[in-house]
């Protein structure tokens, strides 16, 4: 009998190993809670400023040193107060918006709770092929649970995935400093962003795309309120509201209602104001001037090298080798907007003007998309709008579209069949 058992052992072992590996596979989904880092960013940011000031002490003149030391001290105090601030802001934001996994959909946001339910939470699927938890299924490993652009694969990408919490979007039909429309977000999901890691989700059913769009808006609004609370934490009025909102019961509810009114719903400054007006801020596309395409390209070239001012960034060769470029770093010029596109706790990444000779244009690249982008610039990355009449923008569109092929017009077809492979 003993013999038989000892012989049985390898097979038993194999079974146990199989069961264990299956169990660990099934457990995959739960672990995503671990990278829920909604509010880790400010800490990294402050720490970085302190380090930088510290480093500058060595070379500073004596009379500057005192000032620098005071700044460091202030920052360190801020860093010390951060955990308490974070606790308060997180508690209040969670009470208002729920967590990204269990969202509460405030009526002030005008979002559709049913759609959001489909996108939030752990992934599920039933026999009929209906799936839930769409965001975790498709987006979370890049954009992070809280939409902070810091999922586990994010750090390997260039550009980094978008941090939705700051509410900045590059590819939109609306004007400068405006939010994208639902259609814009839908297009981004369907087409992806060519030239970046953001993939196309074209084959998802329309209802799922809609759900994801709604959820991106939810994460963005939630994040913007969270950021605003941080920024205005010490303002008069806000402080009292926050203290009140931390109370339980009805009194707390009242204060939270106040916050919603003040930060979300306010017609002029509320977070919702820009989202709500997006559809009215779509950039008008003027008719194309009636010139031949060759002529239009020629005019576009003149604008590009002349009054358009494109050369200073995109370079004489249009290969993105001009003099001006940014990094997503807090101290660099025009830095704030850029930093806000990506999670601030990541190392710097140069944000270079694009090489326009490359056949891939990032983001939607229909003529109409390019028109709007060139008319408004790309506000999120500091590419300015050219000061030219709206109809001349069409010449720029035509010129930009011709750039990859300028020196590359096809010659006679080469014979391809001679290779004896």
């Amino acid at each position: 009998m003993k013999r038989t058992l000892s012989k049985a052992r390898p097979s038993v072992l194999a079974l146990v190993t199989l069961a264990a590996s299956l169990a660990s596979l099934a457990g995959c989904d739960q672990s995503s809670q671990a990278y829920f880092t909604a509010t880790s960013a400010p800490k990294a940011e402050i720490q970085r400023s302190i380090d930088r000031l510290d480093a500058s002490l060595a070379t500073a003149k004596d009379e500057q040193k005192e000032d620098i030391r005071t700044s460091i001290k202030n920052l360190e105090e801020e860093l010390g107060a951060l955990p308490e601030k974070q606790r308060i802001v997180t508690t209040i934001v969670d009470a208002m918006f729920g967590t990204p996994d269990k969202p509460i959909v405030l009526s002030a946001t005008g979002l559709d709770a049913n759609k959001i339910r489909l996108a939030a939470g752990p992934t599920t699927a039933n026999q009929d092929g209906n799936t839930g938890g769409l965001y975790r299924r498709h987006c979370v490993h890049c954009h992070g649970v809280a939409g902070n652009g810091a999922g586990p694969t994010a750090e390997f990408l260039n550009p980094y995935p978008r941090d939705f919490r700051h509410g900045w979007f590059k590819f939109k039909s609306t004007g400068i400093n405006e939010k994208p429309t639902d259609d814009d977000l839908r297009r981004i999901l369907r087409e992806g962003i060519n030239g970046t890691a953001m993939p196309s989700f074209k084959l998802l059913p329309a209802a799922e795309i809609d759900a994801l769009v709604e959820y991106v808006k939810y994460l963005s609004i939630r994040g913007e309120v969270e950021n605003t609370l941080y920024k205005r934490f010490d303002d008069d009025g806000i402080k009292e509201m926050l203290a009140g909102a931390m109370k339980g019961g009805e009194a707390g509810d009242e204060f939270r209602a106040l916050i919603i009114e003040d930060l979300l719903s306010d017609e002029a400054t509320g977070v919702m104001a820009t989202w709500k007006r997006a559809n009215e801020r779509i950039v008008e596309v003027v008719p194309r001037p009636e010139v031949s395409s060759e002529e239009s390209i020629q005019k576009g070239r003149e604008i590009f090298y002349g009054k358009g001012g494109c050369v200073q960034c995109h370079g004489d060769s249009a290969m993105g080798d001009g003099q001006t470029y940014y990094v997503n770093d807090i101290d660099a010029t025009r830095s704030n907007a850029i930093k806000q596109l990506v999670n601030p706790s990541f190392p710097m990444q140069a944000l270079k003007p694009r090489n326009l000779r490359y056949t891939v244009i990032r983001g939607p690249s229909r003529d109409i998309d390019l028109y709007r982008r060139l008319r408004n610039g790309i506000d999120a990355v500091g590419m300015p709008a050219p000061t030219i009449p709206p109809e001349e923008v069409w010449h720029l569109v035509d010129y930009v579209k011709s750039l990859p092929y300028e020196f590359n017009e096809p010659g006679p077809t080469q014979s391809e069949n001679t290779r004896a492979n």
Partner: protein
Amino acid sequence: MGKAKYWSIVYLMVPIFGVGLFVAAPALRMWLPADVSEHGHTIDHLFVFIMYLTGAVFVATECALVWYLWKYDSKSNPAPTKFTHGSHSLEVVWTILPAATLLFIAIYQINAWADQKLVRRAPVESVGPDGVRGTADDVPKAPIAEVTGRQFEWRIRYPGPDGVLHTRDDLLDVNDLHIPVDEELVLVIKSEDVLHSFFLPNFRVKQDVVPGMKQKVWFKAVKGSEGRSYDLVCAELCGWGHYKMKGRVTVDTQSDYRAWLEKLSFEQHKTSEPPPATAEEQ
């Protein structure tokens, strides 16, 4: 006689279960996907042929294995094993038999391979002045599209009205390839980053996509496949998002295909868009 020998029955389950699975597979809808290409039957024929061949060898070796396990368990054979220095003639037999079989398969499949992979056998527009196909003066058929794999999607570029790829009038799309039915067609496939594999299961087309190489695949969608969509997948593990690299091939009638290209062209060049529906209208 010990009970230990009954363990050999567990090993017998392997061939039984394996063969059973193959027999049941078509009924469980786990067999090959529907073939809608003109050349696909040659690939399927090779597949089935090799499956029967290896299947027979598999069953024979498994039976021999189990029989030995059963017969020579240690309880009923207390005498220690005697080792020999091998049998020369046996070794010759088991070297020559597989070698001959492999050689046979290599020759048997050679045409199927050549038709699919040799650029010389790709569809031609005309055979050129010399009237002979497969010579240097052949005019190759222009590709209907270029498909570029990248982590993790398939970018598609149609040549546009001038019929030439990489000119200003190219039409762009992603993950959604349309092809005309009943037409011998050529696709150019490329990679933008790493190794991928361009796989159309229903058309029995599979080709690794190698960075830096421009490759061609060709096939013909048979009549009756129009109006339906088929999978376009990546068959080479290309990174963590490999599973995402799924596209769609839609077979169109000639007129639908032209309409599709026109729609792409219209979308690409339009200069106005209807305003989005307001919340009340939705």
